[in-house]
């Protein structure tokens, strides 16, 4: 009985108390930006085909984990590219760097660009003009194999070389 009395009293007290904390609700409004309608898929028309299939890289160079040094087994292919480019200065080479999924996306973006840069540095050292080379990093965003194992990762740690007009 006493308890009930107290609770009734306390309810009265609370009702009587005008300082109940009050909050006002805010609702956020947003707008969608849709790029898919206007965005073209990356055009393959720009890629000069030298006996390679549409959209395929002319050469793919592989790298070790968290590393941007060129492996010895990549050098002969790069010398070949260098020779091609020096014999025809109209060629422009696009070097796309990629990383495997391990580690953070942003660090992988920087790492992938450094891989592409390593290819550029090698080619310029062999006498190719850096004006004819474009470098871009895609990080872990475009894996060739989406699986999570060493086989997939070793394929994804790569630089892809395309000739563009």
């Amino acid at each position, binding site marked *: 009985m006493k*308890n*009930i009395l*107290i*609770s*009734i009293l*306390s*309810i009265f007290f*609370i009702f009587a108390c005008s300082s*109940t*904390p*009050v*909050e*006002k*609700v*805010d*609702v*956020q*409004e*947003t*707008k*969608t*930006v*849709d*790029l*898919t309608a206007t*965005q073209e*898929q*990356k055009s393959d028309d720009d890629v000069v085909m030298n006996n390679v299939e549409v959209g395929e890289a002319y050469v793919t160079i592989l790298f070790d984990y*968290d590393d941007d040094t060129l492996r010895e087994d990549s050098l002969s292919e790069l010398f070949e590219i260098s020779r091609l480019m020096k014999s025809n200065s109209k060629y422009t080479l696009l070097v796309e760097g990629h990383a495997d*999924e*391990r*580690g*953070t*996306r*942003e*660090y992988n*973006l*920087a*790492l992938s*660009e*450094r891989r592409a840069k390593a290819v550029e540095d090698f080619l310029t050292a062999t006498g190719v003009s850096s004006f004819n080379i*474009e470098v*871009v*990093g*895609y*990080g872990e*965003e*475009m894996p060739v194999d*989406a*699986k*999570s194992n060493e086989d997939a990762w070793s394929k994804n740690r790569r630089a892809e070389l395309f000739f563009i007009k």
Partner: protein
Amino acid sequence: MKKILLIFIISFNFYAELVLEITESATKPIKIAILEKNNNSLVGQEIIEIISNDLKRTGEFEVLAFDELLSVPLNEKEVIQRDWLLLDVDSIVFIEVQNENTDLDISYSIFDVSYNDTEDKRRVLGLPDSLRQSSHYVSDGIYKFFYGIDGISSTRLMYVTRTSNIHRLIISDSDGFNEQVLLKSNSSIISPAWSNDAEQIAYVSFENNRAQVFTQDLASGKRELILSSKASVSSPAWSPNDKELAFASTKDGNSEIYVINLKDKKIIRLTENIAIDTEPAWSPDGKKIIFTSDRSGSPQIYEIDVRTKLKRRLTTEGSYNARASFLNKNEIVLVHRSAMDFNIASLNLNTRELSVLTSTKNDESPCIAPNGNVIIYSTKDGNLSYLAGINLSSKVSFKLPALYGELKEPAWSPFIR
């Protein structure tokens, strides 16, 4: 065929994408019941359901279902204390809905069963179409009453989904409802970040075949490219006052940290060396920036004073520490490689003590809730990314599996109230 596909995708969007599964509950959740005071209205039931779900999602509450109750009091006076003590219920939350004119307000009071007394009474003012958000405010008030920490039910989450080759940047309420697509693209979107006033976002988009940072006004959808460059620009981070944006770019040949003043577009370069410097994050006072650098041969976290440019290394343990952000002024959260796995860890800056917080594999992109007590991160099981989270004080862990496609790059909104 294309049209059919489109309809398919759109109809999918009506479902809440975030379904939360508690993987580890609190050792002793607080047991409560939520009842409508002196009424049993449809809108009352709806509100009670939203609040119940919010509280259950924390893993720190057990909310009794209606059919588990021994008696159903209409108000505090009718509470039969014995019934509730028998069920080991801590408190009863009474909800009152005031649906007058164009307003929909919710009053709530917390009745402590053992004291047999009302402990707290509050009121949330809203509109009928903000019913969910008003209910979340009530949930947050209840959470704070019991745990002394601000609740996060009324906050929002931003994340990236990928279905086939369509990437979407989405924000939704923290329970996955009210999903809104901010950007839809054929190319990757990474590193989304909220401004501190929650009115704008920044992110990296590959829509022009390289990494570029855009800011976007949430209400108008107006986008701005922050820096036009042939090199990559990435990893945006809003300064605490939203006047500046820190970012990483290779515009000077190698990945370095910069700060751009968003008003006059003046750029300051902070780092200068041949290593990778990326992933800047501001200290809460805006005086320092922490970032990832591999200048020692492996990625580690460094700190730089924005004004004096004095640097110091923060992480010493392990061969991979990256993507750090401040949990509070003395603690940072980062991605740490332990043995073969990448996990989320915290580092106490005073004691230099590193604690690994997660036990999943290939964890990345940690983001901290505005109450500083919950971390959501991206992880991978099989070929698909999904989100997982941990509550630092209660050790509750949970996951948010993607219902379709991939779910990644979470970013927690600041408090929106």
